[in-house]
């Protein structure tokens, strides 16, 4: 296994099923991520990260899917999907911890530019997911307007 570039952990007051749904449901993911994650989440299927009705911003393949515990997918810009040097791997591990759920996001095989982009984006995404699941609301515009 490659040494991961980032290992981000957040504890969310919600069930593992709700956390799984937040990542994999097109409508729920759009609420905190401002893009929808779209796939049937079967191993070998493609997934897309996109605005409804627009071309995908990110695409990849589902490598592992064990709801609601573990989801692993490849991750690339649509132009780089066939270039192994530009395809990274994201794993979500979801584990109940008492009344909370521990979500661990591991991002591996990142390029230097990818490292920079991702280090800025993930904390906002994960914090916003936690806020949505715990309060039913989101922080307005966590990305400072880049998605408008």
């Amino acid at each position: 296994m490659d040494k991961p570039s980032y290992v981000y952990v957040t504890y969310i007051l919600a069930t593992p099923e709700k956390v799984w749904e937040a990542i994999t449901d097109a409508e729920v993911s759009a609420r905190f991520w401002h893009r929808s994650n779209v796939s049937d989440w079967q191993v070998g299927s493609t997934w897309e990260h996109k605005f409804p009705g627009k071309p995908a911003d990110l695409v990849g393949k589902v490598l592992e899917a064990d709801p609601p515990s573990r989801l692993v997918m490849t991750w690339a810009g649509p132009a780089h999907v066939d270039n192994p040097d530009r395809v990274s791997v994201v794993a979500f591990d979801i584990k109940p911890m008492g009344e909370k759920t521990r979500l661990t996001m591991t991002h591996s095989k990142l390029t230097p530019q990818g490292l920079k982009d991702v280090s800025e984006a993930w904390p906002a995404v994960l914090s916003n997911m936690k806020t949505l699941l715990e309060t039913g609301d989101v922080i307005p515009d966590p990305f400072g307007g880049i998605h408008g």
Partner: protein
Amino acid sequence: MADEMDRVFKALADASRRALLDDLFREPGQTLGALASRLDMTRQAVSQHLAVLEAANLVSTVKRGREKLHYLNPIPIHEAHGRWIAKFERPRLDALAELKQRLEGPQGDRDG
């Protein structure tokens, strides 16, 4: 919730622990031994500090073979930021931070 935030600020209220976080930012995925030699601290001291940082969720870990790799986990700091800073006066604070940085020059300890 209060407990979590208490642990974060108590963990950050120590220069050695902040140095560990800085070094994990520079070089993610280090073992305890690597951190001890880079920071010139005893393994025991690093181990104790890492335990405090892990309990505050400021350090995350993965096991690779027999090694335990440590990572800076910025999520709790991001949550504190969102609670007190992001939701108001963000543009003005950004401008001030930029000004401060320009006046004081580069941080110096950023890239070693």
